[in-house]
């Protein structure tokens, strides 16, 4: 109930016109030579002490990438990226994987403190007021540019049999497990950016939940881009073995810079029989300024494979940042009776361009999927929902429900809905609902007549609009997301 109230209060307490995560950490870093070549890939692989097969895997991807072209079908518009003008690896200087927090560079610790990310195990996410004892525990893997700088609750998780560590570490400690699954959901040749990621990925999280284990706490990874001119290419791989369950959260921010920065991540989820992964993202990369200068290019491939019977994947995303978002978290519903969900809030303001959605690929019998997408466009932004729902010939009894709503604030923004539906099995039942509406002046006036300021009124109406999706987020993330929604829309009316 008080959720909306919280939002309103948080908007007031936050400095306007400020991307408050836009600060820079001054720290010396070690970079790979600028540009992309086999040499740079060898450099990255060597820094990470990787097994030989991993290097070969990367090089293979790189050679394929050289012959690929950037996709052009999305409704986004940006100047050609010069891939030779980027750094592909940056790590805090003299970086050695720390054994405990005391070994982490204090500048970095300060950074996460400022971001409100709890690296000490007794802390919780900033801004969340929950009494001691009732606080949910959250294990955090903190990725700073190209390396993971800290991972918390390792011992407790280990006792439960859960593996949660940077993927670079997993490659050394559990190489067979990584090798068994890496690239099996998003193959190296999947698409231009995924292939690039396969060649140069630096860090990210690896999670393995053994059979029958319900992960005892939320797991989360927090990505921070700090270095100039540096791309971030993280790779996340999560495996829920038979009957396992995990809820995983992902957050991200970057300093304010005039130039655009590339973020091309790959996330792969594997879910076996009766297992479930709930994956939530609050994406808050720097969106650029009001004129569209700077901001992150967020070109991300996220896909989950429901390999087992009755397996389940649920994607929830709150997209508020990035200059350009190109992102379609998808589910391959292979196992009989498996199900996929996609809940999305995508907000665009200023000159932001969002092209986002999902793919639900029904391969197995009696598979179900559900898509709830809420797009909000303001300023001069463009916001496209692009979704594919398909049923394979053998997907008898496949069912999908899609609801796709767009809300426009002001006269200069755009909202677009591009649904693709392919049913090769006659018994498939696909339902699609879509609405587009303008934020109602009358509704805003009604709220203001009751005492709400214009910005509070917008925040309230928008919060109501996205409520179905917010409810899907873990509580502490929902609070964070509400704050973000209000901040993203500041100055969008009047």
């Amino acid at each position, binding site marked *: *109930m*008080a*959720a*909306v*109230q919280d939002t*309103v209060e948080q908007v007031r307490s936050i400095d306007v016109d400020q991307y408050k995560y836009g600060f820079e950490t001054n720290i010396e870093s070690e970079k790979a030579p600028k540009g992309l070549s086999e040499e740079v890939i060898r450099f990255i692989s060597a820094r990470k002490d990787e097994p030989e097969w991993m290097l070969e895997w990367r090089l293979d991807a790189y050679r394929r990438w050289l012959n690929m072209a950037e996709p052009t079908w999305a409704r986004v518009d940006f100047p050609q990226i010069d891939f030779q003008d980027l750094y592909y690896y940056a790590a805090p200087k003299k970086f050695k994987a720390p054994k405990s927090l005391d070994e982490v560079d204090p500048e970095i610790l300060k950074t996460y403190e400022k971001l409100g990310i709890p690296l000490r195990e007794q802390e919780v996410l900033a801004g969340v007021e929950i009494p001691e004892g009732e606080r949910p525990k959250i294990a955090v893997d903190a990725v700073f540019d190209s390396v993971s700088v800290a991972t918390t609750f390792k011992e407790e998780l280990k006792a439960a049999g859960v593996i949660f560590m940077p993927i670079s570490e997993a490659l050394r400690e559990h190489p067979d497990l990584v090798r068994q699954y890496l690239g099996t959901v998003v193959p190296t040749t999947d698409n231009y950016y995924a292939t690039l990621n396969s060649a140069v990925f630096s860090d990210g999280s690896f999670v393995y939940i053994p059979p029958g284990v319900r992960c005892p706490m939320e797991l989360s990874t927090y990505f921070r881009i700090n270095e100039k001119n540096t791309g971030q290419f993280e790779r996340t791989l999560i495996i829920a073995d038979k009957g396992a369950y995990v809820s995983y959260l992902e957050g991200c921010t970057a300093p304010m810079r005039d130039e655009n920065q590339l973020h091309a991540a790959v996330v792969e989820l594997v879910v076996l029989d009766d297992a479930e992964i709930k994956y939530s993202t609050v994406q808050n990369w720097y969106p650029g300024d009001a004129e569209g200068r700077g901001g992150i290019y967020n070109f991300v491939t996220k896909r989950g494979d429901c390999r087992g019977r009755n397996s389940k994947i649920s994607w929830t995303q709150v997209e508020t940042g990035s200059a350009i978002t190109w992102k379609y978290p998808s589910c391959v519903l292979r196992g009989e009776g498996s199900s996929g969900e996609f809940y999305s809030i995508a907000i665009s303001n200023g000159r932001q361009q969002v092209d986002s959605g999902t793919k639900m690929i029904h391969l197995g019998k009696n598979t179900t999927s559900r898509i709830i997408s809420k797009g909000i466009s303001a300023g001069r932004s463009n916001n496209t929902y692009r979704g594919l729902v398909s049923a394979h010939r053998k997907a008898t009894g496949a069912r999908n429900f899609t609801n796709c709503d767009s809300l426009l604030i002001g006269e200069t923004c755009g909202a677009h809905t591009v649904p693709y539906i392919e049913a090769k099995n006659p018994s498939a039942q696909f339902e699609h609902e879509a609405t587009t509406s303008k934020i*109602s*002046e*009358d*509704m805003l*006036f*009604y*709220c*203001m*007549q*009751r*005492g*709400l*300021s*214009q910005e*509070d009124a917008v925040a*309230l*109406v928008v*919060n*109501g*609009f*996205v*409520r*179905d999706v917010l409810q899907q987020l873990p509580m502490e993330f929902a609070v964070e997301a509400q704050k973000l929604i209000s901040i993203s829309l500041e100055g969008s009316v009047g």
Partner: protein
Amino acid sequence: MAPLLEIRDLHAEITGGRKIINGMNLTINPGEVHAIMGPNGAGKSTLSYVLSGKPGYEVTSGEVLFRGVDLLSLSPDERAAQGMFLCFQYPLEIPGVSNMAFLHTAANSQRKQRGEPELTSPELVRKVRELGKQLGIDTDMLKRPVNVGFSGGEKKRNETLQMMLLEPFLSILDEADSGLDIDALKVVSNGVNAMRSPDRSFLVITHYQRLLDYIVPDVVHVFAAGRIVHTGGKELALELEATGYAQYQNEAA
């Protein structure tokens, strides 16, 4: 005693359109109940919008003082915080926002603007539940999104609930009786009567004398073609019911 509301020679039009308010004068003192009656399309709702600051209307001349302040220079939320409440003829629906959360936000937004301490959640919930009981609004309706799927009568009860919670100095009721059954009419009127006090005033816009049996006015105005053309006591309402507005429309023209 200083008047609560003073409207002096007010002229207003729809932005880029017709002139609707045409030399309106009205003074409401604290504690008074004024009724406005008049033909359809005379500009009664428009008057309520101009007073509460709805965008889309332009005041071309005249002035309005509310509690000694130049009302027209304030934004709608500032007017609300000053103690002006508009009971909407057609209350809006706000999907996804619970009634209780809306009430909480509204009450505390106003308190904050006035520099008063905010209500805590338990305080507010207690208050709202109490009022809900008086008005026949059950807890289920408090949890539901604001006005979404409410019947016409339920919406009006809900408006009354908001008014009683916010305790404004001036409540403008625009056809609060439309769509109400007899029981609801009594409930809403009882709510208004319970709020009556020496420093609280009401401007009641209605077409039917019946409402004024329950909310007994001190003054009745006839409003035609954008201004008040005749003023009398509560018996004027009865008269109007018998004679209609024909004579006044000539007067206004």
